[in-house]
């Protein structure tokens, strides 16, 4: 095993980890505010198709800026779709599990509808921000050879960790998630805070989705996120709702998904390739079992997670 192989593997791991890290960081904030949005997969797909379409259509007029605008549009589209969920859940008090599922199904359908005319079209991949001498250095590319989204994901997970644990606003958000009635009674706008959290989660899922259509394979394919949105949800549970562990967990899943790619590509595997494809999901279940069993008192999850809150009735 030579150094080139290890470098290749590391680059791949960082790549496949990024979208789930982005989506899970957003969902962490949503769940900390006491809302469970299961629609991550749908929001990611809406982000993926929007980012791709905007980059493609404005490629001529915006030039180098097109992908940045595309990412921004993906974030906006993700946030907009999450508002549909937020309105039902926060303003109408509908069931969060069912509404999140509806959002997932809706996102799959809407993204296929929008993307139908883009199938088979390719855009320039959105990678490498650093100059060539850094980004193409045989060793240095591990740190410098990535898409800007990779660095954005790392910055965001640190920022969210800081926000939740070290700022007043983060404390209020956690209070809303731990005890909505108390937070409401001392005057915090519980519903408004939750709307903001859900919008943030939607934007992050949208950006995470756009990583598939703009970086990994710079084209659109139906359901191209292939269930990674659900992995992101499991990742939040795995992290015990902590940003630091979220980062570790994301890379753990990234390694599993990379194993799948390598096993498929090399054909050296003594196990069928389908085993490796199923591996991240099997491991997600195992990890959920271990984490849930450890959390005996159920004290790690935000206390109000998934509970409707209707102050005006």
């Amino acid at each position, binding site marked *: 095993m030579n150094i080139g192989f290890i470098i290749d593997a590391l680059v791949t791991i960082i790549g496949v980890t990024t979208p789930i890290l982005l989506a899970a960081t957003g969902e962490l904030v949503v769940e900390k505010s006491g809302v469970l949005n299961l629609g991550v997969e749908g929001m990611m797909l809406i982000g993926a198709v929007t980012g791709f379409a905007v980059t493609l259509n404005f490629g001529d007029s915006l030039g180098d800026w097109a992908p940045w605008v595309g990412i921004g549009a993906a974030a906006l589209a993700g946030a907009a779709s999450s508002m549909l969920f937020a309105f039902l859940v926060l303003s109408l008090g*509908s069931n969060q599990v069912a509404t999140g599922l509806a959002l997932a199904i809706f996102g799959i359908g809407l993204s296929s*509808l929008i993307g139908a005319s883009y199938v088979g079209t390719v855009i320039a991949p959105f990678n490498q921000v650093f100059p060539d001498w850094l980004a193409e250095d045989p060793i240095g590319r591990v740190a410098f050879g990535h898409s800007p989204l990779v660095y954005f994901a790392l910055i965001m997970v640190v920022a969210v960790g800081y926000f939740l644990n070290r700022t007043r606003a983060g404390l209020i958000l956690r209070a809303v998630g731990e005890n909505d009635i108390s937070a409401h009674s001392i005057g915090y706008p519980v519903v408004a805070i939750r709307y903001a959290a859900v919008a943030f989660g939607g934007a992050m899922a949208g950006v995470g989705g756009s990583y598939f259509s703009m970086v990994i394979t710079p084209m659109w394919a139906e359901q191209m996120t292939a269930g990674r949105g659900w992995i992101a949800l499991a990742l939040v549970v795995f992290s015990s709702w902590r940003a630091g562990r979220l980062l570790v967990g994301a890379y753990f899943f990234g390694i599993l998904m990379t194993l799948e790619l390598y096993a498929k590509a090399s054909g050296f595997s003594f196990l069928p390739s389908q085993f490796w494809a199923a591996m991240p999901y099997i491991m997600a279940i195992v990890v959920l079992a271990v984490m849930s069993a450890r959390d005996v008192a159920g004290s790690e999850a935000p206390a109000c997670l998934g509970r409707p809150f209707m102050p005006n009735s």
Partner: protein
Amino acid sequence: MRIRLEKRLTPSRFMLVATPVASVLLTMALGAVIFELLGFDGPDAIYQTFITPIVAPYKWVDVLTKAAPLIIIALGLSLGNQAKIWNIGAEGQYVIGALAGAGVAFAMPQAAPGFVAVPAMIVAGIIGGMAWAAIPALLKTRFRVSEVLSTLMLVYVAMQVLNYLIGGPWKDPNGHNFPQTPPFSATQSLPNVIPGTVVPPGFVVAIALTLVFWVLASRSVYGFSVRTVGAAPSAARYGGFDAARTVWSTLMISGGMAGLAGILEAMSQLGQINLGFPSGYGFTAIIVSFLGRLHPVGVFLAGLILAVTYVGGQVAQTAVHVPEATAGIFQATMLFLILASDILVRYRLRLVRAAPRAATAGAPA
């Protein structure tokens, strides 16, 4: 003037029935507007999607064929949903059920008579679906793993099991290298439709099961215990209804139903298992369950409506050239609307005239 919400003491029965109907109608209206905006003939697209499959007799077989698995799966899911136990992985149980039934068929001598082969395959299908649902049940009762995530993750695992079996050990040697199993023999199959009718065998099963679930849900202690666990967990515990038992029983029933739907589909429609077998019935059945208000008769009707949108979606594709994905959007819109309208069941909307603050201030202390 503003709208105030007043909680009802008991859910409105009128709204319980009226809101699903309104949701379907509103979906049609919204759909017409959206298609018009997208540059299609909106009203025609809606007519083709929602009405053609009902008025054109040659589409009835298709509608009933699609309705059968949706109803069978959704009946099982509704029971769990009443207990707030969310099995969203019926698609996986559907796949594993069909594979289990197929496994029995391939292990059996081809000459085994139909009265042995057919029941054996069906029972294997039910057991296969149950076994796949037993994993989340065990994880939930032993390790308190959320069944929402575990059932869903297992869908992806089930897909890989399917891919592995049809591309490897069970691959049809005469299948021109396509990933598919050999066809079931004549004695291992069911007809597409009951001869001389437009009714597929699965639909007969769906009707029978609707009646069974109706009795189970409304006339049995078990049905009552499931509703109680969902509505008032602490009261249920006080009343001696065991939560773990409810988890197991609802997941076993919904898994078994999904497995049954899977093997019936394989035996009567495809005659083998191939890559196209998982077609999303397990997910659509979740919508059926909610649109039917978790009531067996409601589920039966909702299954027919969703089947109409499937068939009508294809009609609209050829007639009005709307994209394939439209059916999915209609289905999701219906689910959004039905969930949004829940508030009308639980709350009364009151129009309140200008804030009565002045009056209160002026009142004698």
